[in-house]
């Protein structure tokens, strides 16, 4: 049994930074758990604590049924793949893979067999005698993985292993990693800041922010039922459009209004979210994913109460979709959550957000079908699917669903302050 359990794990560094706050996590045996979050959220620290490379300030970590807090990394029966591969430069690929076996006093023939088996899984047979500096990035990454699987450990720990590869190679290696994990059925913890990787690789995904777990769910749940503003804005690419809106009652219908437009909230949607009733007449944060919109001309039978008349600013034709960027006269959501989401992209994104906040202007992205005739500068009507609206509490950032918050941990503390 190699299930991994973290119980009330906390890490405070020597300089006082609290990198991880009372973290609880259960990783079922054989599952692929992804820890995702922006830089500095503590995910790598959690991984290093499971590996034994960092001490815990508080809490316990169990691998299998052993408490491993005081057990050195080499004795925890885990293997790790590092972001920069950490291959021993003065050793050949074979020696790199064989070192841990040698240290554990595995006899030479057995060692040889295990290394060659692992090499076969990753197609490394031809480069066993080469040194890391003679290999390409993709080959080095495979050697790093080979070094991990040769030990047949109870768990794999991976720290952003694909972030140094180019886009195409990354896609290919993602599939490889998935295949290997499914073949070997080894419990895996995978740390990344790329939400695409999180969504495609994980059985379970844990979103972290500033040392606090935001939501633990399957990728589908994270996408369709984000627990709070941060998770909603983090998962999904292009990101969810967020705007401050007001909930109002018009002619017996619940309408969410912003920028002088209103979108009718259908009864079934309102019924599924009884918590909305408390926000009548007040500001809420409205989230609309780009996928939840389309060119109204291409949506037959669209409800006229679900349309936004807009002028297209930018048109990105991707072949399979067309992304339309347009502005709305509504203030963007400018909270700690959205600022952190923007700064995680880069400083220009953050500067842009600040600028738009001062101008009280939001920029939306809609994903239209490729048949759309919308052009830059032309008017267009965008249909918003009212069944795909997300609502968030402007003060706490929590998702407004039922009477209580839907997330297990951290929602209260994950708020906008």
């Amino acid at each position, binding site marked *: 049994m190699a299930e991994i359990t973290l119980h009330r794990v906390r890490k405070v560094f020597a300089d006082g930074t609290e990198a991880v706050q009372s973290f609880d996590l259960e990783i079922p045996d054989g599952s692929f758990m992804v820890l995702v979050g922006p830089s500095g959220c503590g995910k790598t620290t959690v991984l290093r604590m499971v*590996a034994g490379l960092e001490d815990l300030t508080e809490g316990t970590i169990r691998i299998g049924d052993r408490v491993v807090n005081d057990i050195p*990394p*080499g004795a925890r029966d885990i293997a*790790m793949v*590092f972001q920069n591969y950490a*291959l*021993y430069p003065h050793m050949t690929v074979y020696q790199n893979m064989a*070192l841990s076996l040698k*240290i554990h006093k595995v006899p030479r023939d057995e060692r040889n067999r295990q290394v060659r088996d692992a090499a076969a899984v990753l197609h490394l047979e031809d480069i066993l005698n080469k040194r890391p500096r003679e290999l390409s990035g993709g080959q080095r990454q495979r050697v790093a993985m080979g070094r991990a699987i040769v030990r047949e450990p109870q768990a794999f720990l991976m720290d952003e292993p694909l972030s140094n590869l180019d886009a195409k190679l990354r896609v290919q290696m993602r599939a490889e990693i998935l295949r290997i994990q499914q073949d070997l059925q080894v419990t895996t913890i995978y740390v990344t800041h790329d939400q695409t990787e999180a969504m495609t690789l994980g059985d379970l995904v844990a979103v972290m922010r500033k040392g606090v777990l935001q939501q633990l769910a399957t990728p589908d749940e994270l996408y369709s039922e984000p627990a709070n503003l941060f998770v909603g804005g983090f998962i999904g690419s292009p990101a969810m459009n967020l705007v401050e809106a007001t909930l109002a009652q018009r002619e017996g219908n619940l309408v969410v209004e912003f920028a002088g437009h209103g979108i009718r909230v259908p009864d079934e949607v309102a019924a599924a979210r009884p918590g909305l009733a408390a926000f009548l007449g007040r500001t809420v944060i409205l989230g609309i994913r780009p996928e939840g919109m389309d060119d109204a001309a291409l949506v037959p039978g669209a409800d006229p109460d679900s349309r936004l008349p807009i002028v297209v600013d930018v048109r990105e034709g991707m072949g399979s979709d067309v992304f339309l960027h347009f502005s709305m006269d509504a203030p963007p959501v400018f909270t700690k959550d959205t600022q952190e989401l923007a700064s995680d992209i880069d400083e220009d994104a953050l500067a842009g957000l600040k600028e738009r906040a001062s101008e009280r202007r939001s920029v939306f992205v809609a994903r239209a079908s490729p048949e759309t005739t919308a052009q830059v500068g032309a008017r267009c009507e965008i249909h918003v699917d009212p069944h795909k609206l997300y609502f968030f509490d402007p003060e706490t950032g929590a998702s407004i669903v039922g009477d209580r918050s839907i997330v297990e941990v951290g929602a209260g503390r994950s708020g906008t302050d």
Partner: protein
Amino acid sequence: MRTLDEPASLERDEPVATPGSPGGRYRARRLAFKVTIYALLIAVCGFILLPVGWMLTAALKPDLEPVFTPTPEWFPTRWWEWKNFRRVLTENMPFLRYMINTMIIVTANIFGVLISCALVGFAFARLRFRGSKVLFYILIVTMLIPWQALIIPQFLFFVKVGWYGTYLPLIVPSFFGTAFFIFLIRQYMRTIPKDLDDAARVDGLNYWQIFWRIILPLSTPVLTVCAVFTFLASWNNLLGPLIYLDDSDRFTVAIGLANLVTRADTPWNLTMAANLAAILPSVLLYFFLQKKLIGGIASVGLKG
């Protein structure tokens, strides 16, 4: 990721070019450039080798032939007294014996320096322990103490423990570390990525194994630098052997050379022969370690 085709180059070697045509003029210019550079380099080489040439000339002269002639005589020469070398190495003065003695001391020194400084350098570079910063600063401060202040106390100490007259005062201190080398090694080891340590720990290596199997093999450039510096310092060291050795069988090369010159009438031919013999190991060392050494000195400041 565009593939780079052969860049369009002005330096295309046109097969047909007569002197006077544009292509021919360009090639002629390049040739002239190369010839000038090589001529300069040969000239500088010759200039540097002149003293050695003169030493060889002097070494090959018979006993009474004047060495300091009004116009200096360079190598090659009309005198070919090769037996001068044999005389100085075995007969007049057992210079060969001195070379062997010095070789023993030097080898032991290199051994001591590498062991002690690598271990201490590793500790400062990789291990975290209370007081490491303070100890390191103390180490640096010891480099400020002038050796003149240390000679007399050290001498008194070695006499007290009965090591006077032996090689021990010349060898044992190197096993206790040299501040400069420790500093150099520590700085170099810090450039080795810490990820390697983490990977090694996950692989199950303890700190000694990390030192022996990972960090030390990766530190060969800086270790080569330390070894060569130690060699040169030990080989040329005159003061140490002069103070601590009294048995002439145990003398070193430096003492031998000094003794040759301070005699009433210096036999210059023998002295020059001894000199040439003395510099030979250093030159050989350089030839064999040239690549490693230059890489080492350059990379001591850079990422390994």
